[in-house]
């Protein structure tokens, strides 16, 4: 982001010499600032920032929400959470998601994006695969489908007796899968749920990476080819290093989504799945607050979730920085 601010302002030197206008508080200027800055800021502070701040305070009370009685319990809620086995299971599941989901999604979308962009002829200009437009359009479909509907469709696909998946598997002779409950068996429920999320996001990141790869000057690829690099080598040594900042951004976004996962998990298995195998923190938080009215405890979960989210983002930035990425992005 800061990159853009450094690059812009062509001819900025000329402007600097122009005489500064006098500062005068006219009605025009005052009303302008009040409406343009004040109005959005007030809305933002009231509905976004203040709830965040309040949540941190509530997390130290055992408030039930029905009265103004908020007994202050300090870090009691946090102690309670770390001794709560089911909450710790939900933390474990969220961590599993944030470890695996971004990696799988980004590797798959990078492979597909690479195939589309440099799968074409090795003669003449570097070009993409024939029919690339079709693949691009179709792959993006899941991104425009509401997450709820994706969950509902896949819940039907996984239906044991008459779902599409078991229909196909028994159709090609794998009779062992007849009536197999993909979402109802603790061994497969998590993997099956992850497949749904990967399905939903690969297309989006594929388009993102295609755009990034197309932003690399063609000369770079040509030079690599003249030096004798094959396609695989080009992808590893040219493409990935040049779009690593896009990959980093994608990784952070996907991680934040994986730590949320509320929609997918609650539609696929509304109660947390067999043996709580798909229960994630966001689901646990939601039921603690709105079904059990333990608002203080729920806020403490929110704080834990926020800390994990920020820790994850910081880790990704740190790893990218240490391994030598983004030298040119001055913070």
């Amino acid at each position, binding site marked *: 982001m800061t990159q853009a601010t450094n690059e812009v302002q062509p001819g900025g030197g000329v402007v600097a010499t122009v005489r500064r206008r006098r500062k005068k508080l006219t009605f025009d200027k005052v009303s302008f600032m009040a409406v343009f800055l004040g109005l*959005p800021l007030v809305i933002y502070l009231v*509905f976004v920032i203040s709830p965040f701040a309040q949540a941190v305070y*509530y997390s130290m009370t055992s408030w039930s929400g029905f009265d103004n009685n908020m007994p202050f319990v300090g870090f009691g809620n946090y102690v309670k959470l770390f001794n709560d086995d089911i909450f710790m299971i939900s933390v474990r599941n969220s961590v599993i998601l944030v470890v695996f989901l971004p990696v799988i999604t980004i590797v798959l979308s990078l492979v597909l994006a690479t195939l589309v962009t440099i799968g074409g002829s090795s003669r003449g200009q570097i070009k993409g695969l024939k029919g690339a437009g079709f693949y691009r359009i179709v792959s993006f479909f899941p991104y425009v489908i509401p997450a709820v509907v994706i969950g509902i469709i896949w819940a039907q696909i996984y239906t044991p*007796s008459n779902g599409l998946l078991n229909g196909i598997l028994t159709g090609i002779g794998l009779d062992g899968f007849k009536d197999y409950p993909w979402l109802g068996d603790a061994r497969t429920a998590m993997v099956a749920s992850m497949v749904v999320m990967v399905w939903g996001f690969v297309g989006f990141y594929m388009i993102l990476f295609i755009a990034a790869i197309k932003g690399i000057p063609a000369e770079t690829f040509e030079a690599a080819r003249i030096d004798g690099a094959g396609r695989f080598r080009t992808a590893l040594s040219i493409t990935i290093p040049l779009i690593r900042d896009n990959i980093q951004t994608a990784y952070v976004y996907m991680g934040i989504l994986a730590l949320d996962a509320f929609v997918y998990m609650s539609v696929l298995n509304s109660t947390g799945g067999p043996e709580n195998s798909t229960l994630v923190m966001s689901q646990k938080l*939601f039921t603690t607050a*709105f079904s059990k009215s333990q608002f203080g405890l729920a806020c403490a979960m929110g704080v834990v979730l926020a800390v994990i989210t920020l820790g994850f983002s910081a880790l990704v930035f740190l790893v990218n920085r240490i391994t030598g990425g983004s030298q040119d992005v001055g913070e």
Partner: protein
Amino acid sequence: MSLDISKKSAAEGHVERKGEDTKSDKVVAGVSHVMLTLWALMVLIPLGWTLLSSFKTTTEIFASPFSLPAVWKFDNYISAWNTAGIGTYFFNTVIVVGFALVIVMVLGAMCAYVLARYVFPGSRAIYYLMLAGLTFPIFLAIVPLFFILKNIGLLNTLPGLILVYVSFALPFTVFFLFSFFKALPKEIAEAAQIDGAGEWRTFFQVMLPMAKPGMASVAIFNFLGLWNQYLIPVAINTNPKNYVLSQGIAAFAGQQGYAVDFGSLFAAAIIVVLPVLVMYILFQRQLQGSVSAGTMK
């Protein structure tokens, strides 16, 4: 596997300069097409199956996942629209998303413009405050938000939902448009002011029209994000009369276990998916341009 192939092609590259596509080219293209086609099928088959099932009766759905319907039942769509209330939810969603989108675009553009163009004490702090709103999970805010709306009497109302949609879409909008306004040449605003335009006029008649491409990109993303929003309405909009599509169809699917009408459920899914999918296919060039605009910053 493509590793060996491409290596070979590189080694032989300078031997046969003139030929058309080399053999390895064809192999690479073939393998690429196979993998991409597999993925395309992975995307299309579930959607096609949903469409097919939306015309079947519940008995037929239970009988076999592949069979064609004996009669193509459009009744499923009618019952989804009327009985399941998808029609009402659709209407609510259009109202909420429509208003929220317009308001957030106007407010976001104004705020981003001020932050990008004027330097004043605290402008940096406001910018970072916006950034914080992007990174913190919405789940942290959801409980206090519930009570804030309750206290001002907007809980379970459409205006309350619109207001919250606007607030949570604001940081992304400001953040994206900030870099856009920053990139617009300063000279133009200065020229407008020398010509006698006040601050208001400069913005609405000169700067805002110049920001149209950026506005379009952000509007598309905000539209998709708000149209698909689920958590916020489930938490603060619990009156079934005011349901939006995403929570309406989830509620409909939730009761399916007991009152079984799977044909209508599939039809409801198609009703929700179709308008956005058609819009996407019509505007896909614009949208994919937006994705690149969003990443090339």
